[in-house]
């Protein structure tokens, strides 16, 4: 598992998780090129046979496989050497479980080495199969656009023969590592059910450990030898994936264990608290934050003519966002430790922690104190109860605001008991203005690294009024049902970011219209964009304004002597991801608070008159609200609505309410006004 600062430049619309791409790449490479060589048939070892011989309970028909047995034996040999021996045995239950027929061993080279990789298959019929390490393929990801260019994450893949339903697959391997930190995470849960899982720890004499439990009740350790302990679980449920579910580390059972050498903390000691982890990180930063004459000169140029500290900070922030290209080169400790600010400045590139480092150096040059903040971009991965460990994948920063500085643009702030008012800022995010943070960072926990060490803090949740689309349209309907008119959109927060990103990502001027066409196509069967313009597209500190005109033939449907007019002309807020037969197991997560509003006015043709109107909708839940109303004012049908997401996580027991919420919205979005033609009234 990658456990590093690997977060790339945030992209508002990311259809594919890079890790999925990488796994896919590896899978394709593996499928295309890799066939294990023919090896002498070998019998599965006795430990695997004994597991395979046991009867298993029945599982539901969608269970792809079952992890029959998992064993992790971790031996700390010294502060510089840890050996971990792993065994796993799966039974494949369905064709979709064939993926469990390959061992995927993740490791970091050169810090870790995989040895003695063996795999076996005990088929339901016939002799066993055996494959060995020489049959494996080592792979590492290609550079990913917007992601890591170079890192030392590798995977050793061993395809085991006959991974078919009914067959039993097992493998074992050892990893020897030179640890950066004396810490380990034992994953208790899998995507499939686990029958039996064991973990043992052997420490050198005089060492101690600290075990913490995440999403799982504590399991008492059994002392099984001199400085050796064992833990075991049985019959652990698998975690089946659901749309918009919390992140894996927010729900999966884990034990985080720190190894504590005798004689107090060493630089590599596992973390006993967030404070000690903060201190560890502070030490990594210690020689990285120095400025240079060149940086100072750049700072002077950037702030020239700026009188207020806010203007100066904004100028520096824009420089970091716009002029320092996101490039992640993460090797060894470089996965955690930033490059020196001077190097980042010279090359004009760096990853998230590099950008934060240079920004801090520049702020320091104007006398403003700031701090690194380590965070996981998937809110919920780290919570208030999470034990200290390397659970983060991104670095942002907190700026100690000068005394008395207040400005409405400074939203992502919190009052810190010692540091005073601090502002969170993500210098990797090239689209969000200084003063705000993106939805996935809001209400998230981060490790604030201070000179005293560190502490876990909860980032602020911004008001929903800071994020949303305010859409207004003045439209005219003619007697044929054709609709045309003008639309103005004011986009704030993440809603602006996503559209800015879409506009920024086009590869030609011709494509700039496509984001608007995409929007219209969601609601109109036919349309012609007559005019379109974006205002303040590149000014992140301003709302993004989209202004466009369109025409749509036969928008209103003729039904005998009446026209049927849908007053909700544009915008789709209803979501259907909860319309499944499966009962919901996990909460529903939203990116961030948001409030969208629509206001459409449709002027009817002369003599036409609206009949009975759809009933207004008023829904207020603790997590969200929706209000919609259709009115007639003279010849104008006026539709207004607002939707607000107030809570970022809706618990599973409230999901039925959320489902109803979206169904009502879907109905409202399709509701119709019957408009009578002049002849129909006579």
């Amino acid at each position, binding site marked *: 598992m990658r456990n590093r600062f690997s977060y790339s430049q945030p992209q508002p619309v990311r259809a594919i998780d890079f890790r999925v791409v990488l796994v896919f790449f590896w899978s394709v490479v593996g499928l295309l090129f890799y066939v*294990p060589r023919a090896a002498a048939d070998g019998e599965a070892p006795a430990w695997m046979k004994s597991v395979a011989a046991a009867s298993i309970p029945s599982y539901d028909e969608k269970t792809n496989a079952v992890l029959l047995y998992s064993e992790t034996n971790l031996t700390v040999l010294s502060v510089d050497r840890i050996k971990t021996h792993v065994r796993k045995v799966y039974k494949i239950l369905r064709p979709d479980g*064939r993926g469990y027929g390959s061992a995927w061993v993740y490791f970091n080279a050169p810090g870790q080495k995989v040895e003695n990789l063996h795999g076996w298959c005990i088929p339901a019929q016939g002799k066993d199969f055996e494959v060995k390490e020489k049959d494996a393929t080592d792979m590492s990801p*290609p550079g990913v656009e917007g992601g890591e*260019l170079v890192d030392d994450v590798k995977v050793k893949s061993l395809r085991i023969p006959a991974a078919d339903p009914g067959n039993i697959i097992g493998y074992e391997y050892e990893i020897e590592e030179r640890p950066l930190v004396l810490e380990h995470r034992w994953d208790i849960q899998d995507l499939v059910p686990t029958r039996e899982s064991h973990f043992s720890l052997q420490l050198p004499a005089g060492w101690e450990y600290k075990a913490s439990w995440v999403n799982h009740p504590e399991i008492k350790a059994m002392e099984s030898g001199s400085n050796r302990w064992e833990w075991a679980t049985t019959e652990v449920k698998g975690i089946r994936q659901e749309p918009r579910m919390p992140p894996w580390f927010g729900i999966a059972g884990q034990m985080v264990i720190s190894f504590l050498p005798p004689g107090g903390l060493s630089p590599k000691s596992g973390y006993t608290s967030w404070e000690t982890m903060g201190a560890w990180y502070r030490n990594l930063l210690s020689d990285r934050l120095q400025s240079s004459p060149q940086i100072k000169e750049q700072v002077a140029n950037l702030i020239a003519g700026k009188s207020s500290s806010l203007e100066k900070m904004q100028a520096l922030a824009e420089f970091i966002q716009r002029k320092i290209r996101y490039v992640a080169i993460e090797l060894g400790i470089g996965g955690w430790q930033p490059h020196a600010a001077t190097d980042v400045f010279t090359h004009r590139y760096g990853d998230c922690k590099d950008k934060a480092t240079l920004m801090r150096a520049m702020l320091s040059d104007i006398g403003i104190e700031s701090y690194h903040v380590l965070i996981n971009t998937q809110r919920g991965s780290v919570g208030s109860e999470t034990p200290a460990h390397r659970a983060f994948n991104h670095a942002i920063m907190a700026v100690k605001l000068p005394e008395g500085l207040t400005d409405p643009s400074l939203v992502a702030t919190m009052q810190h008991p010692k540091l005073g008012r601090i502002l969170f800022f993500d210098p990797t995010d090239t689209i969000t203005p200084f003063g705000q943070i993106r939805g996935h960072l809001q209400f998230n926990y981060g490790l604030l690294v201070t000179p005293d060490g560190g502490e876990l803090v909860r980032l602020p949740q911004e008001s929903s009024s800071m994020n949303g689309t305010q859409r207004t349209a003045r439209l005219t309907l003619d007697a044929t049902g054709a609709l045309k008119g003008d639309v103005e959109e004011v986009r704030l927060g993440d809603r602006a970011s996503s559209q800015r990103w879409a506009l920024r990502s086009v590869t030609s001027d011709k494509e700039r219209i496509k984001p608007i066409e995409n929007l219209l196509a969601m609601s109109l069967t036919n349309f012609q964009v007559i005019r379109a313009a974006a205002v303040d597209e590149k000014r992140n500190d301003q709302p993004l304004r989209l202004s466009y005109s369109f025409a749509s033939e036969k928008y209103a449907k003729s039904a*005998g002597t009446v026209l049927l007019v849908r007053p909700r002309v544009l915008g789709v807020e209803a979501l259907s991801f909860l319309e499944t037969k499966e009962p919901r197991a996990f909460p529903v997560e939203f990116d961030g608070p948001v409030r969208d509003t629509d206001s459409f006015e449709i002027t009817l043709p002369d003599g036409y008159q609206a009949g009975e109107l*759809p009933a207004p909708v008023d829904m207020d839940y603790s997590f969200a609200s929706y209000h919609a109303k259709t009115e007639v004012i003279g010849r104008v049908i006026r539709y207004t609505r607002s939707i607000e997401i107030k809570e970022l996580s809706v618990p599973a027991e409230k999901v039925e309410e959320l489902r109803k919420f979206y169904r009502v919205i879907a109905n409202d979005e399709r509701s*119709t006004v019957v408009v009578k033609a002049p002849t129909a009234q006579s």
Partner: protein
Amino acid sequence: MSLYRWSSVSLLLRIVLLGLAITTAVTAWAVDGFQPVSPDELKMTSEPKAPGAPAILLFRQVDRDDSRREAAHETNYLRIKILTEEGRKYGDVELPFYTESEDIRDIHARTVKQDGTVVDFDGKIFDKSLAKGRRIGLRAKTFTLPDVQVGSIIEYFYTVDWKHLYDSHWILTSELFTRNAKFSLKPYKSANVPTMRWSWHSLPPGAEAKEGPDGIVRMEASNIDGFKPEDFMPPANELKARVDFIYELEMPDKDLAKFWQRIGKSWNGKLESFIDKRKVMEQAVAEIVSPNDSQEAKLRKIYDRVQAIRNKSYEVRKTEQEEKRNKEKAEENVEDVWKRGYGNKAQLTWLYLALVRAAGFEAYGCWVSNRREYFFTPNTMESSKLNANVVLVKLNGKDLYFDPGAEFTPFGMLTWSETGVRGLRLDKDGGSWIETSLPKASESRVERDAKLKLSDNGDLEGKLTVTYTGLEAMYHRLSFRNEDEIARKKFLEDAVRAQIPVAAEAELTNKPDWSSSETPLVAEFDLKVPGWASSAGKGEILPTALFTANEKRLFQHATRVYPIYFNYPLEKREDVTIELPAGWQATNLPAPQSKDSPLVAYDLKVESAKEGLRLKRKLAINILLLEPKYYTALRNFFEGVRTGDEEQILLQPAAASAGN
């Protein structure tokens, strides 16, 4: 169904393109160093021929030297102008290569700022192992350029060493617009051959590869548009300008006809050798058909019998160890295939040829070009692009094509990529050119028949039967051939839900036949669409068509660059009966829609029926390839379809209706 599958292919395409890049792309520049940058290049802020481009290739030069067979090498020089912030990503460079066949060396790079200041690349070039195993070595040279800003020029050159002599390709079209490009190739020449020939495709005006008196082939090109994939476009290879160089082990035929005659004779000899088991085949035919069978019945019985043979090409890929343990010998002729009861796709198709000949039919083996990657033309003399085998049978004066080795292909049809393509019909004289048949839209259908009831609260509920025929059935059967009933059920239910533009519940109630080639794939469901009818005052509004989600966002953009390409013609039919709530009736019936042309057709009709309403819809797409100039017409057609689909029926309680 193939029509809407393009986006899911795109990721795989990217992976494949990565592979192509490794084998085909970018070579290096054998000059002394960087070329001077002109003031115009420095100050330019946009390219009029590529407005809005994030970056353009100002200059690219490829020089390949194959003159020494064991020391072939290529150099490539690229100069890129960064025009937008997005374009700065081109400052990251990754050059993948296969270690077995290539190496990359002598990388030089620099950034030239807009003011002319040069920032030399002095960073590290990372040598990444992307994949390393017993049979694969894939590495990449990776580096990133310093101080890449909008307005910068980045440039780099490097050399690729080839460990052997390979065919080579100049792919002129890249992701970026290319202002100027130069290519050269110094071919290997020897009295003992191999010899080289080249072909080209879609070259920009003025670009022509010519061999000079020094034996070097050179070409210059300019203003080459950047490549940006679109939905429903032909294979990317068909859209990119390219020159392909091929070394041949035999003396090249200057004459096209002679070239193919030689190829045809050679292949025919191999085919005849594989199928020449007349006696065994006659015995087999006797087991399959009876003398009283009609000619067509005989062909069909033989076809069914061949398809019943285990087809190894469609099994879950086995490891070498599994294959070794199975002790399955290689099949050397049709007798082996027949007696052992298994074979691969191509072998089974040749078995069919042998059997139908033994049954007395005039039949020929044909090699055709599948159109997944390229559109074939004999003019380029690329025999490797004839890569799929089919059987031509003469029956009652007609040419019938068969490919029973393509699993689940119905009798009388070919798998989609083999339809409507050219191929070489083999005979002892070398053969002749044929074009395979293209099935009509009506031969590959998705039919949905539903009997539904509308409840007082607007829910629609009842029975639905979906019938997939022809290539539609084949595609689904192939996709799920190695899956279980759970996965197949999920797919079918998801497919129904995906067709309905609002949230719906579908429960499969029958056991579809996934194993047959001949019968349609029929799936029956309990269907519920909550809130399908929406309120309109005292009445309810009922959309005319139910299964329309696929067409909802088809061709929504006003502009188009590339031709429109469908894998195969297709037809959709819906016949939906809706029983209305007691006392309710429709106050209007939308006017029938009918847009009929040879290429596309759409019919929609709503009738009053005994139960309430009957909605019939047909959408037929008879297009394979359409020039971009017809895009607007096609877009208009689909807008008309969507508009027709969203015609609405106003339902009112009888009293209210009477009042109106």
